[in-house]
C-alpha cells in the first residue's frame, strides 16, 4: 500500500508542473494587463510602463516564470497587487472558507444522496422510489445560483429566518451557531445538484449489486433484509459510489463559485473571479496552483480509499 501511495504522489509532480505552466501562459496570453486594470481610463503608455516596472512585469516571460516557480518552491507566492497583501495569506483565508462550505455541502450531499439511492433501490418502482426519483430530477435540473436567490428571497427577506449573506454576523456572532445560521442556505443550494447525482448513481449501483447471486444466497439463507442491503449490497456498491463522491467533491468545489457570489461567501471561487477581472496575475496563479494541488490530493485519496475497499484495483 505504501508503495502504491508513493507512486501516486510521484506521478502528481509532472501534473502540477504542467498546471503551473498552463496557468502562467494563460495569464500571460489573455488580453489586458494589471496596469490597465489598475489605471482604467488613465492607462496611458507612460503610466502603464511606470506601473509595470513597479510590479516587475517588465522582465521577459521565461524569467518571470522561473522567478515565480522558484519563489513558490520556497513558500513565497508573491504579493497580490489588487488586495495589497501576500497571496498565500489571502488564498489560505479564502480556502478555509470554501473548505467549510464545500465540506459541509459535500457531506450533506453524500449522506443524503447515498441514503436516497439505497432507499430507492431497495424499493424499486415503489412509491418511495418514484418520489425520490422525481425529487432528484428536479434537484439536478435547478441551477444552484437560481436556487440560492430563491432561498434568499424566501427564507431571508420574507421569513427572516436566516441572514442573507456572509459567513459570520457583522455584529457579535463569530461562534459555531452563528456559522451554522450563515451556512445553512448556501450549503443547501450547493448540495442539491450533487445530492441528486449521487442518489441516481447510488441507486443504479445498488440495483446492479442486488441482482447478484450472492445477494440471493444471502436472502435464501435467511439474512435480514436490512443486513442484506446495508451489509452485503451497500459495501459492494460503495466501490462504484466512491469515485462518484470524489468527482462530486470537485463539482461542489467548482460550483461554490456561483454560490459564493450569490451568498457573498468569502471563499476562493469568488476571489479567483475577482482576481481574473482585475488581472491580478500572482493571485490567480497562486490560487489556481493551490486548488489544483487539492484536486490532485483528493483524487489520490479517492483512489486509495477505493483500493482499500477492493484490493483488485491496485494496479
Amino acid at each position, binding site marked *: 500500500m505504501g508503495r502504491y501511495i508513493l507512486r501516486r504522489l510521484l506521478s502528481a509532480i509532472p501534473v502540477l508542473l504542467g498546471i503551473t505552466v498552463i496557468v502562467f501562459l494563460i495569464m500571460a496570453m489573455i*488580453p*489586458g*494587463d494589471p496596469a*490597465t486594470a*489598475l489605471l*482604467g*481610463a*488613465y*492607462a*496611458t503608455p*507612460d*503610466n502603464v510602463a*511606470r506601473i509595470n516596472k*513597479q*510590479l516587475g512585469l517588465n522582465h521577459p516571460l521565461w524569467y518571470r516564470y522561473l522567478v515565480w516557480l522558484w519563489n513558490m518552491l520556497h513558500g513565497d507566492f508573491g504579493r497580490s*497587487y*489588487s*488586495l*495589497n*497583501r501576500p497571496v498565500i495569506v489571502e488564498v489560505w*483565508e*479564502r480556502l478555509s*472558507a470554501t473548505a467549510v462550505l464545500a465540506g459541509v455541502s459535500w457531506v450533506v450531499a453524500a449522506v443524503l444522496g447515498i*441514503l436516497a439511492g439505497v*432507499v430507492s433501490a*431497495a*424499493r424499486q418502482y415503489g412509491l*418511495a422510489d418514484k418520489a425520490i426519483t422525481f425529487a432528484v430530477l428536479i434537484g439536478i435540473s435547478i441551477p444552484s445560483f437560481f436556487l440560492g*436567490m430563491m432561498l*434568499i428571497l424566501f427564507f*431571508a*427577506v420574507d*421569513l*427572516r*429566518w*436566516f*441572514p*442573507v*449573506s*456572509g*459567513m*459570520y*454576523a*457583522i*455584529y*457579535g*456572532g463569530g461562534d459555531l*451557531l*452563528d456559522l*451554522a445560521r450563515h451556512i445553512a442556505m448556501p450549503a443547501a443550494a450547493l448540495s442539491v445538484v450533487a445530492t441528486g447525482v449521487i442518489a441516481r448513481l447510488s441507486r443504479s449501483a445498488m440495483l446492479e449489486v442486488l441482482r447478484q447471486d450472492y445477494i440471493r444466497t444471502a436472502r435464501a439463507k435467511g439474512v*435480514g433484509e436490512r443486513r442484506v442491503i446495508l451489509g452485503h449490497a451497500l459495501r459492494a456498491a460503495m466501490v462504484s459510489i466512491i469515485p462518484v463522491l470524489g468527482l462530486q467533491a470537485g463539482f461542489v468545489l467548482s460550483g461554490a463559485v456561483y454560490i459564493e457570489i*450569490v*451568498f*457573498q461567501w*468569502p471563499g476562493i471561487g*469568488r*476571489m479567483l473571479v*475577482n482576481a481574473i*477581472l482585475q*488581472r491580478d496575475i500572482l493571485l490567480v496563479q497562486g490560487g489556481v496552483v493551490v486548488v489544483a494541488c487539492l484536486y490532485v490530493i483528493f483524487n489520490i485519496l479517492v483512489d486509495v480509499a477505493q483500493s482499500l475497499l477492493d484490493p483488485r484495483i491496485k494496479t
Partner: protein
Amino acid sequence: MTQPTLTRRGLLAATGATLSLAAFSQRLMAETPKGVLIVGQVAEPKSLDPAVDTAVNDFRILVNLYEGLTRYKPGTLEPGPGLAESWTINPDGTEYTFKLRQGVKFHDGTDFDAEAVKFNFDRMLDDKNPYHDTGPFPLAFFFSSIKTTEVVDSHSVKFTLKQPYAPFLSNLAYPTGLIVSPAAVKKYGQDLGRNPVGTGAFKFVEWKSNERVVIDRFDGYWGEKTGTKAVIFRPITDANTRVAEMLSGGIDLMVEVPPTALSEFKSDHYKLYEQVGPHVWFLILDCAKGPFKDKRVRQAANYAINKEAICKNVLEGTASVANGPIAPAFSWAYDDKLQPYPYDPDKARALLKDAGAEGAELTFYVTEGGSGMLDPVAMGTAIQADLAAVGLKVKIETFEWNTFLGKVNPGLDAKGQHVDMAEMAWMTNDPDTLPYLTLRSGAWPQKGGFNSGYYSNPEVDKLLEAARTSTDQATRAELYKKVAVIVHDDAPWVFVANWKQNAVSNDTVQDFQLQPSFLLELQDVRKV
C-alpha cells in the same frame, strides 16, 4: 423483511432540526445598535492607502479616515479649505503656499505639520525617496506637475509647479491627495493599506477580509464630532444580494442601487437619494477614417440616437441626457444653455443623404461592463437599433472591460483595426481632465493621450491650454463653455448620458447627502 423505517424517522429528525435552527436564528438575529451605521459597499476594498488606491469604492471609505489640504465644499466640486486653512498663489500660477491648520493630530498621536505634507508628496513623486517602494502609486500623475515641495515653517508648505496647472487645488481634494501619517508609513511600509492612519473624523479599527471594515469616532478630532459612534462597511459584490440585504435589514445604507430594484424601496421605510456626478457617457467616433470623417455624418448620429429613451427606459431614469463634454456636476463650468442634440431621425436622414453616407456599414465596439459604463450592452443595442432606423448598418463587437480598453485606448485605427465607434465613459474631478485627455490634438493615442477617435480642432486645443493655465475660476468657466459649444457642433462623439448616482437608506439614517464627487462623506450622518 424489515421495513426501512429509518428514512421516516430521519426525515422527522431533519425537519425538527431545521425548525429548531430557524427558531434559534430568529431569536439570535442580532440587531445592530443605535449609532452604528452599516454601509453596503460594491466590492472588497483593495487598500486603504490613498496614494495606492484607484477605486471609487475604496475612496468612499478613505474620505472618512483621511483629510486632504483642500476638500470639496459640500454639494459641489469646488475645492475649499481642508487641512490647509488658506493659501496664496503667485501671479503666474506656479507657486502655491498653504497655511496649515494648527493642533491637528493623526490617529496615532503624531502631529500633522508641514513636514508631514512634504513627506506625503515626496513618497509618491520622488523615486529616490526611501518610502517610494511602498507603492505602486497609479494615480501619482495627478501631481506630476509638482516640481518641489518645500517646508516654509512648521505650518506652511510651498509647492512649486513645473508649469501653471489650474486643476491643482481640485486634485488636492481628490482622494489621491489625502494625507497619511508619516510615522505609520515608516512603521507599516506596504502594509499601510491595511493599517490606515489619517487625521479624519473617524479612525480605523478593523479590516476583516471580505467581511467588514470598521471605523470608529476619533475623539481627538480637531473639528466637529461625528454623528455616529462607528461605521461598518460591508463588501457585497452581487447587486441582487445587496438589495436583499437592504430589504432584510442587514445594511442601513447602500450605494449604486440597480435601476431595476429602485421600485422595491418606494415606501416610508426607505429614503432614496440621487445626485448627478462628474460623469459623461459617450460614443467615440472615428474622425480620421470611414464615414464619421465627415462632420455631417457625426451630427447625423447625434440626431438619430434617442438619448431620452435610453436614459428613461434602459437606465430607468438614473441618468440625464448629456449636452457636450462637460458634466453638469461641474456647475461653475457647465453651460446649461447648450441644448443636447434633439432626437430627429428625419434630420439625420437628410444629413446622411447630403454626405452621401446612406446605408453605410459601421463597426461598433461595446463592452460587457466596466467602471462607469452603466448598462453598456443594452445601451449599445438600443443605439444600434436607432442607427438602423436611419439606414446605418451597425455591426456590434462585444468585449470584456480590460480587453475592451486594450482595443480602444490605443486608437480606433491602431494595430491594424478600423472601428467606427466605441462606447466610453469617464468620471473626473475637474472639468479640465476629460477634454484635456480626450479631445486635444496633442492627446492622440500615439502621443500618450486618450483621443482614440483622432479629433482635432486647433481652436479647442488653444482654449483648453488657456483654461488649464489660468488660475481665475471665472475665466476658466468661460473657456470651458466655449469648448463645449465648439465640440458640440463638431460632434467628435455622440453625447449620450450623465449618470446620476443613487443610494438608498432605511428610515433610521438621518442627515445623509450624496456628493457630486461620488465620495461618501459620513461625518454628519446620524442613526436613530
